[in-house]
């Protein structure tokens, strides 16, 4: 009855909890309660069952050979380990999650690059009180007055003044 022990990784629930985004908190809490319940159940069971006192039984039971037979069969018994059906599914989930996470991180990096570019533009901008109107139109293209569409001053619809 040697127990094979797949080493349980110690999980830092605090660090895990920090990383959970707020919209997934419910799922996280459910997972935690489930895990705690399982761990509690595991802890409540002693690792090895209580040993049977064969000598006492040998003296007590009158039927000849019964105890010896039981003892022999008991010692020879191999309890099959429960089959692990879920780990492969979990690994598949993990691979998929990795893929989607890397894709998300790529997108995130692209977004960060964009933001950085705009930040650069703002940092390298000349101060407003040294700008001319042309400089302003260069830096903020949306301020450029469309002199073709509205040829007469103020070059924009009156409502937008």
């Amino acid at each position, binding site marked *: 009855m040697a127990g094979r022990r797949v080493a349980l990784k110690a999980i830092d629930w605090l660090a895990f909890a920090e990383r959970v985004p707020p919209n997934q908190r419910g799922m996280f809490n459910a997972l935690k309660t489930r895990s705690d319940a399982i761990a509690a159940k595991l802890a409540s069971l002693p690792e090895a069952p209580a040993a049977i006192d064969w000598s006492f039984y040998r003296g007590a039971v009158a039927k000849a050979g019964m105890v010896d037979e039981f003892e022999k069969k008991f010692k020879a018994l191999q309890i099959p380990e429960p089959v692990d059906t879920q780990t492969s599914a979990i690994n598949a989930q993990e691979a998929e999650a990795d893929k989607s996470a890397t894709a998300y991180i790529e997108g995130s990096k692209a977004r960060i690059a964009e933001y*950085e570019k705009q930040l650069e533009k703002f940092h390298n901008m000349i101060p407003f009180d040294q700008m001319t109107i042309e400089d302003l139109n260069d830096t903020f293209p949306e301020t450029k007055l469309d002199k073709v569409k509205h040829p007469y001053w103020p070059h924009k619809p009156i409502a937008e003044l």
Partner: protein
Amino acid sequence: MLSRLVFVSANALKGSGPLGAGLVQASRSLHTSSQNLAPVPPLPEKGGKVRHGIFPEELFQLLYPKTGVTGPYMLGTGLLIYMLSKEIYVINHETFAALSIGSVIVYGVKKFGPSVAAFADKLNEEKVAKAQEVKDAALASLTQAVEQEKKEQWRAEGRTLLFDAKKNNVAMLLETNYRERLHMVTNEVKRRLDYQIALQDLHRRMEQEHMINWVEKSVIGSITPQQEKESIAKCISDLKVLAKSTKATV
């Protein structure tokens, strides 16, 4: 304006030695190099220094080495007297008109100039402040957006924890199941052995009780009526003896 340029270039030609702060203006050399500066350097905040409202400071600095402090004044006085006496400038009605209008203009500017300038400056300030606000808001939101993205990336990195937890759960469940099986086997075996022992005990007890009952019955059955009468008589005589002895003691 051109006079100022003349003075500035004159100073440059003389290999201008340091003549104090008065010389150092924002001397912009316009288009002296083939490349134009971009962005165009900003216009100076204040115009060139002038004395008495019209005469540029450079004139005084120019004449200072040769004629000292009073030089330009003497030059001015001399020029004026020359023009009046030689009638290069003729005094007529227009002179007085010019003088009165000039004095009113000067008075007006001196009195209301600063407030008007402040008002115009305020208008400009507001425009600049609005633009600045926009820029600040944009900067703040961009930096925050970058931070958010980085935070989300950090969160995504924590996904291994989730799968570790899941695998742990699976392992724990398997282990629990295995232990339960072990315990079940042991308990079952023990129960069967205990049952055998209990069975044996029951047998023994039943045999004992049966035997006792049988012995009792046979003993009682073996008491003949004659023996019974004799034992009853003996009991009565014993009781009488006892009664006598107790009566005596009481």
